[in-house]
């Protein structure tokens, strides 16, 4: 980025789909909405190289730049810096990697693809836009740092993993899908959840179940190990510090854990089922402290 915008810049054209078939000078001529007027991308960004291979890199202070990678279907978008709202909103495929923080509405209503954020995210990651019934409908959102309120609001399918803490109403009105939190949680986790799973991997997550949830037992889960190994494979390093294993080493040998299985997913989890104010087919898995 050459010129930092003073008012919001809406640049949904920055997506591998749109740029891969264009020459450098054509990319610079792509229109962006700067406040209430259209401008050319080249006014703000120095454009070089080509996106023929489906890979686009964006660099700079992008906190007022919105809608990057919105509705993208393929390719790879890499962002170096802090980026604004609606990143990867409604994307269907491809991948986005962010080395920095992102604003609100990350991957809102996305349907496929993968977003990996190495910093923190704002509110409403993977959420439903106001007035929509369902939020994210597929794909993966990985946030290594903290996330704000209403993570996965109305989640219908897909996976959201937060390496740090989350705000209130994590997994509110979830229809299905999985949310995994490595840090501490705010109030009212899983309020209005119909189906789906919220996994709290921190043994002291600060979780207070709503009165409409019921504790249904302590168990070890195979699919959590699959999830743990997959996250390790993706190179996901949560911000929240991994607590020391609470179980003696001898006990750990009884698991089928391999060297690549992280310790968090091999422990035992309390299962809370609910939300009984709704369909009550959801679950919150809370790591045994």
């Amino acid at each position, binding site marked *: 980025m050459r010129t930092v915008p*003073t008012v919001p810049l809406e640049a949904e054209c920055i997506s591998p789909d749109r740029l891969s078939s264009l020459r450098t000078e054509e990319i610079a001529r792509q229109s962006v909405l700067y406040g209430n007027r259209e401008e050319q991308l080249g006014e703000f960004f120095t454009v070089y190289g080509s996106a023929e291979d489906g890979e686009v890199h964006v660099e700079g202070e992008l906190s007022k730049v919105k809608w990057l990678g919105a509705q993208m279907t393929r390719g790879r978008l890499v962002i170096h810096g802090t980026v604004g709202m609606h990143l990867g909103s409604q994307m269907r495929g491809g991948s986005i990697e962010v080395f920095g923080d992102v604003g609100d509405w990350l991957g809102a209503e996305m349907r496929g693809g993968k977003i990996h954020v190495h910093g923190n995210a704002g509110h409403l990651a993977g959420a439903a836009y106001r*007035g929509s019934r369902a939020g994210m409908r597929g794909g993966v959102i990985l946030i290594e740092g903290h996330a704000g309120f209403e993570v996965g609001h109305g989640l219908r399918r897909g996976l959201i993993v937060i390496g740090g803490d989350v705000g209130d109403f994590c997994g509110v009105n979830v229809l299905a899908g999985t949310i995994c939190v490595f840090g501490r949680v705010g109030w*009212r986790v899983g309020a209005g959840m119909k189906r789906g799973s919220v996994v709290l991997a921190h043994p002291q997550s600060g979780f207070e179940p*709503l*009165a409409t949830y019921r504790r249904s037992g302590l168990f070890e889960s195979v699919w959590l190990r699959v999830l743990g190994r997959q996250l390790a494979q993706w190179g996901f390093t949560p911000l929240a510090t991994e607590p020391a294993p609470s179980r003696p080493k001898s006990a750990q040998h009884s698991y089928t854990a391999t060297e690549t299985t992280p310790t968090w997913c091999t422990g035992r989890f309390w299962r809370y089922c609910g939300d009984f104010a709704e369909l009550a087919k959801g679950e919150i898995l809370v790591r045994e402290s």
Partner: protein
Amino acid sequence: MSTSAESLRVIENATCTFCGCVCDDMVLKVQGDRIVEAKNACVLGKAWFLNHHPENRPLATIEGKPVSLDEAVERAAQILVQARYPVVYGLSDTTCEAQRIAVAIADWIGACVDTTTSVCHGPSGMAFQGVGEVTCSLGEVKNRADLVIFWGCNPAESHPRHMTRYSTMPRGLFVPKGRKDRTVVLVDVRRTKTAPAADIFLAIKPRKDFEALWALRAIVKGMEVDERIEEETGLSMAQLKDLAQRMKSCKFGVLFFGMGLSMTRGKHLNVEAALALARDLNQFTKFYIKPMRGHGNVTGADNVVSWQTGYPFGVNLARGYPRFNPGEYTTADLLARGEADAALIIASDPLANFSQPAREHLRRIPYIALDPKETPTTRHATVAFTTAVYGINVAGTVYRMDDVPIRLRPALPSPYPSDEEVLRRIERRVRQLLGHPSSVHP
């Protein structure tokens, strides 16, 4: 006293625009340029009418210096046309006619249009979208309601005639004995002045409304809830079950909620919980829910912005079509993030009540303020207009809190133009500057 019968005028059926009740049965006595008596008005209405006095302020100012109306309109239009991310804000204390022009200006200049709803019942507006509202008019409440619940509001002090005129005291068609035929419940964090007027007062712990409403939803459905709810909310299981039973067995129940729900931790999701409870109760009986709206015509602002753009507040028109996203396009947030580069503020005082970063940003950008009185916002405005007071000087339409439009009957003339007049002139000039002089706004 030199009271002479000749100079005393009486205005029957005048409308008070102080609060959302919009009582339209005022009898005002006017002497000279003062209202000397306001019969039927509550304590707030009396203060509204009797404290009205002629202003001694310039018609318009630019950077604090008095100027003519034309000069001020020109400067205002220039600011708005040049702005890249302007915001039109306020609107709740003016007539629907003026609100309509303000939305038109926002449309021409591609602005965000937002009302004071976003800092009071905005979360309720979002919740209405999420869950839906089971709605009725206050007339229905008066004639039918046998269970009235006030949750997180204090009508005895904020809407003094709400209870006597609509909700608890009046005799109605199906509640012939008035107050005796009704059960009134108050849920609040402290014993307010409304509490003595209620049959049941439930003292809930602060910020635990969501938990209580959510538990009530489950109890109404016949589910057992965890006993921890007692410690968490401060309400006993017996109290919750009793309330749930009353809600299910009443003939016509209504829940009025205030900013105790919409502006405490949880915000729109607190309101969603209340709306979902009201919705669930309709499996058993007739149950309705209404917000207790504050400002005189804030309901009108929601209605006008809704029928013009499709959304009630927090609307962005930069792309030529409306987009709705509270938090992104709401004034308090976009000022706090330092995004707006100009503002048009109508009948509102954000410099007195916004957050520090928002106020600081507003001071840095050029903005236009319309207000009948001098406020911190008008003092710092690049262009400030003194306008006539709606309801006292200006006729027009306002909406009562139950979305019923009511006509105003002004009592006094004013030397100042109305908001509508000023906005219409700004709109005309904006159109000329944008090259659309022939387009006529109805």
